[in-house]
């Protein structure tokens, strides 16, 4: 079994990372998952959270806010709407995201209210995880 796979992290503006990784921990919309080499092909959307990549040079953490991940047996591509190294994410960034989410949630009810509540909860969890 191969012990590494290709990992790509791209945002709309640029490619943030492209290297070999042995495992990628993904904050999936339905729950966290860890992709390892020879994973079954799967596409999942992301929730705001921490993406952590373990490669030959150690573990990198990125804060992502949405998008999706495509996992195949030979590699993992994460297409994140916004992704920054976790250390560079500031409280102000999260405040801005929370403000956006709250503005978007106005007038929601029923299922879409659940969705926006979940988004806010995810953002709060991300803030706690980052300790900002």
């Amino acid at each position, binding site marked *: 079994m191969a012990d590494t796979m290709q990992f790509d992290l791209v945002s709309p503006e*640029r*490619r943030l990372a492209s290297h070999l990784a042995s495992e990628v921990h993904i904050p999936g*919309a339905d729950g966290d998952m860890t992709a390892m080499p020879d994973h079954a092909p799967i*596409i999942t959307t992301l929730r705001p959270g921490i993406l952590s990549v373990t490669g030959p040079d150690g573990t990198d953490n990125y804060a992502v806010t949405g*998008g999706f991940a495509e996992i195949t047996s030979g590699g993992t591509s994460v*297409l994140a709407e*916004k992704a920054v190294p976790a250390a560079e994410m500031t409280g102000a960034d999260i405040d801005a995201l929370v403000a956006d989410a709250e503005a978007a949630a106005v007038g929601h009810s029923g299922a879409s209210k659940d969705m926006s509540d979940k988004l806010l909860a995810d953002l709060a969890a991300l803030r706690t995880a980052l300790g900002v």
Partner: protein
Amino acid sequence: MPNLKDLKTRIESVTSTRKITKAMQMVAAAKLRRAQDSAVEARPYTERFNAVMAGLAASVGTNESAPKLLGGTGSDQVQLLIVMTAERGLCGGFNGNIAKLARAHANELIAQGKTVKMLTVGKKGRDSLKRDFGDMFVGHVDLTEVKRVAYSDAQGIARDVLDRFDAVEFDVATIFFSKFVNVVSQIPTAQQIIPATFEDSGDSDGTVYDYEPSEEAILADLLPRGVATQIFSALLENGASEQGARMSAMDNATRNAGEMIDKLTIEYNRSRQAVITNELIEIISGAEAL
């Protein structure tokens, strides 16, 4: 015949024009490099995104419950044309070509009895379409203050468009922008973004994916992002095209100014020689008369 002083002033004025166009050309060249870099850096995202969407759309797109952004509203009566041009002129036919394409498209749709609405991005396109289609404008996005196009700019435009779509203001949306080929060639392009069309790049290896959550949920989440992605890549292409067009326009202008200076200098020298000859004749005939 213009006198010497006039000629001299003209030569000076054309020389300073040449300095300006030369400087603009160099600035455009530097900006072009940056614009091209951003376009290249954005490419992996767009390509992967479109590949995944093409796969998803193919598996979900055929059934009745497909999201409206993909399947359409079932009508194509109201058309929204999103015309993306530059905020500045002096870039050759760049703005004109996009406006021309949009105008032809709009006239065709009107001839078919469709309702046309227009959303303009960039001042120049708005100015040139105002006279013919002024009453069809539904909005304008001003990017004058934007130095470097960011994804958030595209998201802003996409949100505006999607809000209008949710409010059933239109059925079909098409963006008009210029595709960058190289410095001398930019192709004005029309691309339909709602209902979404995804070009299958053909490199899908037929992998069957699991989807989490369901295919429909992913599609519903990603389609609005797809609109933003397409607008973003159009903005980037436009940015590169604008600088490319400006660079070649300014290169032409610089060359023309150079030719003009040469011509004027020859004329100036001839006039000066004529004046000297005249003076000599006067002196000689004066001396002979004594």
